[in-house]
């Protein structure tokens, strides 16, 4: 660890020069238009939160949080996600606002990485729909995620949808030991299909049960996948979850979004956090998810206002790489004027700006005739001219 050089910044944080910042802003504007058209309203939450409240309620594991100590010795975290802060907000400053609430945000989240060179500050734009347990609410956020990806000109994306409660209930129908169920879910959560199957092979279950469990990681497809489960439905929990998914699927058909959706019953998000539908969105050439979200019906009660809720976060940094979207930029005009014509030049600049151009004013200085300005067009104001 040598002496810091003056230009350094903390590892994992990044600067965004104008083209990068412009791309980020462009995508944020586009998805914001979608969010607002669906009735979502913007909220802002603090960068710092208490670890014991928001930190502990977050889906992000503790070892990924940046912690600080405040003057009273309380542990603070740089917000690891927006869902927990918004749950806190809905339960406090917005506690008198009737549910359902539709909220959105653009914000950065902070997640420490094992690999120190990796990015730790991520930009997200997301929505939370609080207070609606219906399959239509799940369908709404999935359809809105699809619309937001389309607004970013992402073509042929796929949203993989799982159901945490259904998976849990299916496993519990076959496997009695809760510890085993937990380990099976952990394996699936870690995308370790080999480890999952090894464990299934060792379970003391019926041949049909084993068969079903072994097929789970390969059960992805459309609504017909739910029909496959019909003969397996032994418990009310499985039945309810299957009905919820079927109704959600039918709503997605009405939203016109089902063509983007693939059901994957082995897909799980952060365990102990999501309680129902969970989804992730992918599009080539990006190798990382562009969006993830789902239903978290147990979070709000931690803040004293029990309510079902669902939502998603778009991974803005990944979207910026994947999206071909480009804005038709304002024409940039550099207007060079002699001091003697400053008042007229400024008036002319204002006219051009009202016409929708970006105008950069610059004093034409004979001593430095080579001044370069980043502009599409250069206008030099000659003495006695009007700059047209």
């Amino acid at each position, binding site marked *: 660890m040598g002496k810091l050089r003056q230009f350094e910044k903390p590892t994992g944080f990044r600067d965004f020069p104008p083209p990068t910042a412009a791309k980020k802003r462009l995508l944020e504007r586009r998805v914001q238009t979608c969010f607002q058209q669906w009735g979502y309203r913007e909220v802002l939450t603090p960068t710092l939160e208490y670890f014991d409240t928001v930190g502990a309620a977050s889906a992000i594991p503790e070892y990924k949080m940046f912690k600080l100590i405040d003057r009273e010795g309380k542990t603070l975290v740089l917000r690891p996600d927006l869902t927990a802060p918004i749950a806190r907000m809905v339960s406090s400053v917005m506690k008198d606002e009737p549910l359902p609430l539709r909220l959105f945000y653009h914000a950065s989240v902070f997640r420490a990485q*094992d690999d120190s060179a990796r990015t730790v500050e991520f930009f997200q734009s997301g929505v939370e729909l609080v207070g609606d347990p219906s399959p239509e609410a799940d369908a709404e956020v999935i359809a809105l995620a699809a619309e937001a990806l389309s607004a970013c000109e992402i073509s042929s994306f*796929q949203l*993989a949808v799982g159901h945490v409660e259904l998976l849990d209930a299916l496993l519990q129908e076959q496997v009695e030991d809760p510890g085993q169920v937990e380990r099976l879910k952990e394996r699936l959560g870690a*995308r*370790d*299909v*080999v*480890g999952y*199957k*090894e464990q299934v*092979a060792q379970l003391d279950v019926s041949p049909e049960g084993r068969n079903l469990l*072994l097929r789970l990681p*390969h059960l*992805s497809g459309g609504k017909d996948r739910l029909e496959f489960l019909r003969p397996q439905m032994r418990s009310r929990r499985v039945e309810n979850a299957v009905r919820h998914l079927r109704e959600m699927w039918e709503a997605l058909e009405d939203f016109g979004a089902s063509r983007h959706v*693939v059901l*994957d019953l082995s897909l799980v998000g952060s365990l102990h956090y999501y309680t129902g539908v969970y989804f*992730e969105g*992918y*599009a*080539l*050439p*990006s*190798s*990382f*998810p562009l969006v993830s979200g789902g239903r978290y019906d147990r979070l709000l009660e931690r803040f004293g206002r029990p309510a079902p809720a669902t939502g998603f976060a778009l991974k803005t940094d990944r979207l910026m790489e994947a999206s071909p979207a480009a804005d038709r930029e304002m024409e940039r005009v550099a207007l060079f004027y002699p001091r003697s014509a400053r008042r007229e030049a400024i008036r002319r600049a204002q006219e051009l700006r009202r016409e929708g151009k970006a105008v950069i004013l610059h004093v034409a200085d004979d001593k430095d005739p080579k001044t370069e300005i980043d502009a599409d067009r250069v206008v030099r104001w000659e003495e006695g001219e009007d700059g047209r």
Partner: protein
Amino acid sequence: MAGDTLTIAMPKGRILREALELFEAAGYPVEEGAFESRKLTVTLPEAGLSFFLSKPGDVPTYVEYGVADLGVVGKDVLMEEGRDVYELLDLGISRCRIAVAALPDWRPSLHPRVATKYPRIAGRYFLEQGEQVEIIRLNGSVELAPLIGLADRIVDIVSTGRTLRENGLVELETVSVVTSRLIANRASFRLKSGAVDRLCSRLAAVTKEGVRT
């Protein structure tokens, strides 16, 4: 998406030949010699497959970042690297184990030291055993460490045990059994699922020890 081409990262060295035999048995014939003469990639256009060679430890990285859709890699590397990839199939090849070894007359020292190429795996293992050890990371010739007095024990990969025997070391405990795995990028697993499933089931059909699907 039947026309998708899959790019597969293959590990140089020990595993490569057995992996290629398995691919050949599954109907994807690639000559090991094709990778010689510094050729970087080998393609099977009819099968829609493209292979490239990399250091074994880098295979999970290539797959996580999606420059390879799939990869073949030892479970030891997966455990050590902890990358976010799908582990799809136990290929059952290059079976070996990660083991703790030492000189036959070793005694726990005051400040036990363990030399290894696998600091994460070794660290986790001794943590689970409730043992406090200092892990020393080496890049090779780990079996020398007890002989020259660098460490009292080592954690290393053992297949036949010959290297250990030649250096007068004995195997004390098995940390984990290791075979090679087929891994997939998260996005490729979904967006090229047709091609991935096809390859996966053909490989599973010829896998000796793997869990069948």
